[in-house]
């Protein structure tokens, strides 16, 4: 068994999922082969890089762009993600010492299986934390017993010691390779709500080419990956939808919200070649290029941004450390399976019991 890079199988809440941290330095938490109730949903999900532009003047990030590319193949003065022991404190200490670095991947990861409650479904959660310069990032993937997936990232650690008061934006990029009941027969559709007058108040449109897309809360815009072959018991095509609730806007460094691309391999187009100009523009100019087969489908890969504008509370609550701030989005099933009968939402999960819910590795 290798210290890092092996696939680890976990189960719970109706899900079977492998996780992996490829390297101690330079990669984040990945989830692979996520299956729900015996059907493949996700080939691979990851959060491989971040683009972090700062207000200026500022010494770090360096000029002329003052925008880090962190994570895989860091650029523009950025840093890689370094796996920490999950017990590492949320403080500046793990940055100043290697004492908190994970020696093996299982030091870094916590798997929780929590039962359904009166207020929500059961879920399987896989979490790990990473040092990135003075920052800490938590990668968290939550798989719910109702089929939902919630990729999340948290920002913690400490403020920029070169300029604690400088505001900045974290643009966190997720790579989502959905394989609904296998590949390569998926199409992408985009949803728009334009009025309350039916028919036509809500519309789905097929996406004919790879490209960059923008979030638009005014039209409740969302995206759907639909399998053209696999159907549920009612003959409906299986699908998963992505909704991106942005709490910060795009800028010249982070230019989109969702990119529709196709699979070109698991060793290429993982974000390693994005950010040479301290922006995400290569996602559009290199990755999301070419037509899509709207009849037979393609092997679709989506890139999705979650972002947060951080106005430091450097003289107050963030003086010593940054309380973890979570951002994320939802990947929601549609017609993936038919719930004809009322059944316990957490099939395969434990009954709720008082006391601790944590299941250590």
């Amino acid at each position: 068994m290798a210290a890092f890079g092996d696939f680890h199988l976990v189960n719970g809440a109706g899900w079977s999922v492998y996780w992996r941290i490829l390297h101690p330095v330079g990669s984040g938490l990945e989830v692979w082969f996520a299956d729900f109730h015996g059907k493949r949903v996700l080939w691979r999900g990851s959060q491989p890089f971040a683009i972090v532009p700062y207000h200026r003047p500022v010494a770090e990030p360096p000029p002329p762009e003052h925008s880090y590319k962190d994570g895989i193949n860091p650029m523009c003065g950025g840093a890689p993600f370094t796996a920490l022991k999950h017990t590492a404190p949320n403080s500046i200490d793990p940055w100043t010492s290697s004492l908190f670095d994970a020696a093996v991947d299982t030091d870094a990861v916590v798997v929780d299986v929590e039962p359904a409650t009166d207020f929500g479904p059961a879920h399987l959660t896989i979490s790990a934390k990473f040092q990135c310069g003075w920052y800490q990032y938590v990668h968290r993937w939550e798989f719910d017993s109702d089929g939902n997936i919630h990729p999340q990232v948290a920002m913690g650690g400490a403020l920029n010691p070169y300029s604690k008061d400088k505001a900045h934006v974290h643009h966190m990029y997720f790579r989502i390779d959905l394989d609904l009941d296998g590949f390569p027969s998926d199409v992408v559709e985009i949803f728009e709500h334009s009025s309350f007058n039916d028919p036509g108040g809500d519309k789905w449109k097929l996406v004919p080419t790879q490209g960059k897309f923008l979030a638009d809360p005014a039209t409740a815009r969302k995206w759907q990956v639909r399998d053209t072959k696999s159907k549920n018991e009612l003959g409906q095509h299986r699908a998963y939808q992505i909704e991106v609730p942005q709490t910060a806007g795009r800028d010249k460094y982070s230019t989109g919200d969702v990119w529709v691309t196709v699979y070109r391999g698991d060793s290429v187009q993982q974000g390693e070649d994005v950010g040479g100009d301290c922006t995400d523009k290569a996602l559009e100019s290199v990755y999301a290029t070419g037509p899509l087969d709207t009849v037979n489908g393609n092997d679709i890969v989506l890139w999705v941004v979650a972002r947060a504008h951080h106005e430091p509370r450097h003289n107050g609550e963030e003086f010593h450390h940054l309380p973890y701030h979570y951002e994320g989005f939802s990947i929601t099933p549609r017609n993936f399976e038919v719930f004809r009968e009322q059944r316990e939402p957490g099939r395969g999960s434990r009954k709720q019991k008082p006391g601790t819910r944590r299941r250590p590795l």
Partner: protein
Amino acid sequence: MKSDMSDLTRKLKPVLAPMSKKEERQAVKSAVEHLIAEIGSGHDLRYRILGAEIRIEKPPRRGDVPDRLIRVLIADYSNQHNLDISVNHKGKVVQSEVLRGLQPAFHPDEIQEAKEFAERDKRVARLAKISGSFASAFASDLALERGRRLVGLHYLAVAKSGEVKPLATLVVDLASGEIVNFRDDKVEGGS
């Protein structure tokens, strides 16, 4: 308890087995032999294995089982580039390419070596002796321009108050062992 794993994934289980020490050794050996054969044995070669990992790629058809490959990343300091070599279960190299413009994450030994090179310089040696000082690695853009393995290092110090003070920012060329850029943060960037 009924498994929630799909038949598609169940077929992959043998491919997803943990990497054994033997498998890793064999892959690294094959990759290094390939590198030496490419360069020529008479060449003065200086390199470092950055890592070996299981590589899975989707098979051509739905339901097929993919090949299990071991991917070996090598920093070739002599030729100032990085190599990505994939080896199959028989130890045969099936793919080899130069990672043009890409710099895999620094190996912990590279960061240590960069610190040792840096602290030969009196300016840096003085900083490294300051109480609470530490170094943090970053990716220098000079690496993209020059195609070299360049390690950026921020030197900082934790004061008794717990506050972190920047000391200096520098870039070390692992091929030459020289500092190629130095910025005194006590003057320019320190808060």
